[in-house]
Every structure is written in C-alpha cells, then in structure tokens.
C-alpha cells in the first residue's frame, strides 16, 4: 500500500492505495464519486474523463498514486451548490444533450477546458473537440447544440 494525498473538487483526501489502482477506480470506489464513469479502460470511450490540474485527461489511464499532490476535478465538482447547475450542465438539460447519460460526465469534463480556451467555438470546432468521447444514444447533434448554448450562456456571464 502507498499513501496518496490529493485534492478532489477542492477537498483534500489522504488514502492508502494499491499502486496498481486506477484513478478512475479510486474516485469511484475509495471516494464514492461515481459520477466518473468507466466504459472501456483503454482510453477510447472518454466516459472517465476528468480534469487533472485543470486539463482533461482519462482517469482510466492514470494510476491513483500518480495523482499524489495533484488536483482533480470530477463532474461532482461542477455545480455551484445543491440547487443550481453549472451553465454547461444547464445547457445539456435544456438542449437535450443526453439520453442515458453514460457519456455525459466525460463530455462535460472535456468541454470545460475546451470552452475555457475557445469561448466562441464554431460547430466544426465543437465536433472536433467531441471526437474523443463516444455517445451511443444521442447521435451527437443535441450534444453539439448543448455545447453551443453553453458557450452563449458562459459568454454572457
């Protein structure tokens, strides 16, 4: 067992973990943050995407011990409080950007840094940015609409 101390959604945690434990399993099983989904465990589907020091990465391709001293944000860290959604989440709600919701957390955590770096993206840029996330339900069109709506809402702020 190895001790790790990391910050997740602005809360500091210290745990003893097996070196072989993936960060995705750590978030879900050790911290109970089951919003981070696991689809493929080989980097392809994007369901496990989180922010690692502010940038989107696959939590299934990082070991929990490697997160020692780092800061992680998961989908649970987006909403400002219990009663309000983050404008990106609100837009997915309003524009029907999800059906079963399996892919959604990974897509949201991909779009946060994307919209930070591209506050006014074109549809083409949005589709390109979505290419690392698989969705088996929506056909993507509503996701693109939701991201577009979010970019408008977030620019107004």
């Amino acid at each position, binding site marked *: 067992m190895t001790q790790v101390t990391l910050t997740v959604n602005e809360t500091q945690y210290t745990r003893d973990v097996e*070196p072989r434990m*993936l960060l995705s399993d750590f978030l879900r099983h050790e911290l109970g943050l089951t919003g981070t989904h696991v689809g493929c*465990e*080989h*980097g392809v589907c*994007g369901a496990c*995407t989180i922010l*690692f020091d502010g*940038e*989107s*990465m*696959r939590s*299934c*391709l*990082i*070991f929990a011990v*490697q997160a020692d001293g780092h800061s992680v944000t998961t989908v649970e860290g987006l909403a400002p409080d219990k009663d309000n959604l983050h404008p990106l989440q609100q837009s997915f709600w309003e524009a029907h950007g999800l059906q079963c919701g399996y892919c959604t957390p990974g897509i949201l955590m*991909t779009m946060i*840094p*994307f919209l930070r770096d591209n506050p006014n993206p074109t549809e083409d840029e949005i*589709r*390109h*940015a979505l*290419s*690392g996330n698989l969705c088996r339900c929506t056909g993507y069109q509503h996701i693109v609409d939701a991201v577009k709506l979010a970019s408008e809402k977030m620019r107004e702020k």
Partner: protein
Amino acid sequence: MDLLSQHAGEAKILAGGQSLVPAMNFRVVQPSLLIDLNRVAELSFIREEGNVIRVGAMARERHLEFDASIEKRIPLLHEAVPNIAHPQIRNRGTIGGSIVHADPAAELPMLMVALNARLKGKNKSAERWIDAKDFFEGMFTTALESDEILVEIEIPFMPPRTGWSFMEVAPRSGDYAMMGVAALVTLDKEGKCNSAKLVYLNAGDGPVDAAASTQMLAGGTLSEKSIESVAVHASENEINPFGNIHASTDFQRHLAKVLTQKALKQAAQRAGESQ
C-alpha cells in the same frame, strides 16, 4: 537508472501511460515494476539551441502543439501534432513515449525520420545519440536497450526555402490513420528541387522513407507530371502496407498515391512562397 539496470527486462518505464496503461488494463503487458518518469521535471523542456530544438522525452504532445518556437522553426511538426489522438490523450501522452512505443501507425516516429532528428539514449553509465532513421527497427521495436531510457530529442530547424505538408486519412478524427505522409521540399535559388523527402506512417513495420522516389525529383522542377510519377513509384514500390480492419492494402496504396500528390504540391507551393 539504478532500478532500471537492476531490473532490466522486467521493469517498464511509465511516461504518459496512454499506450502502456491500456495494454496493462488488458493484461497484455504485466510488468513486475513500473518506473514512473512523471516526476522527473528535468525531462519536460522544449528549447532552442543554435540551429536545433531540444525536447525532453517527457514533454507532453500537447506542449509540442502549442510551442511557439516549434511553430516557427519546425512548422511540419506543429501542423502534424494535432492529428495525434484527442486532446485528452495529448494532455498526458509524451513525445518520448510515442517514439519508444514505435507504433508504425503513429505520427511522431515518422516525423522524427522526416525531420532528421537525433535521439539520446541513456543508461546508468553512458549516453549515446541515435539517428531517427536507425532508431526504429520494426513494429514496436527500437534500437534502445532494456536498460536504456530515451531522455532527449534533437530536431534541426527546417532549412530555408523548404516547404512542408502533413496529410493523413483516419476513420474518424483522432483515430490512428489508415495512411499518412509527411512531405518536405527544399528548392534551390533558381526554384529547382534541391531535395525532397516523403515519409509514411502505417505503410510498413515502421516509418517508411521513400528515398528512391524522392531521388527522382532532385535537380528538376516540380510539375504535375513529375509529382504524379513520384506518387505512383512510392505508392507501388516503396511502401509495404499490411492492411487492417479499416483499409485493405490496395486501398492503403491508393490513399498513399493521392496523399503524396496533394502533399508534394502543397510542400512545393509553400517552398516557392518562402523564396
């Protein structure tokens, strides 16, 4: 370095983990010891020095993409890097990891050959430089010994009057490409072709340098006709694609021909503009 020499053969270096961890998750690879380079801060630099850019093996693919001196000095690399996987993968994946992984379908190994890069290997007691053209020995196989790590990559600035092009066709944006080519054309002061280079990905068991084909261009002018005959020669005689679930070998050769024509044209045009 001590750990690696004690456990040579059993231990694995962990860089970005974007190829190694998927293989471990599938239990295809089960190393007894992982040596994580992510905390070795000295390995993640990108800096100009004289006529070269030096890149530490742990520089992330994402850093290559946004580096201003790479954009200016080695525009071929700047233009090609966004074709590697997705942003989430490039945020973590490293130049060194991609090079040592030596996937024949990967972009960075063939770019290193196209750009005449040199790669620095290091073990407990010594260091050595290896030319990129000698580094890739076959599918997932390199000239590095099991007690060596790749520490640094040295890439020369692209010469003056040089045009470039990178083109690939992938099933979906971010996937490994079915075929890809990097083209470089250097003109002399009269506008004739001084030298040209074509290197392919997914066209054999490592980067494929179509040197015999590009030799046909030296000293001549790049015309529609000469470009076509080079594209035919390279796609029929110099590459050796294996085919995969997305593309038959015939289709890969067809893609190679079309991409070569487009890439040479773009490279020649850019070289002309920089005259």
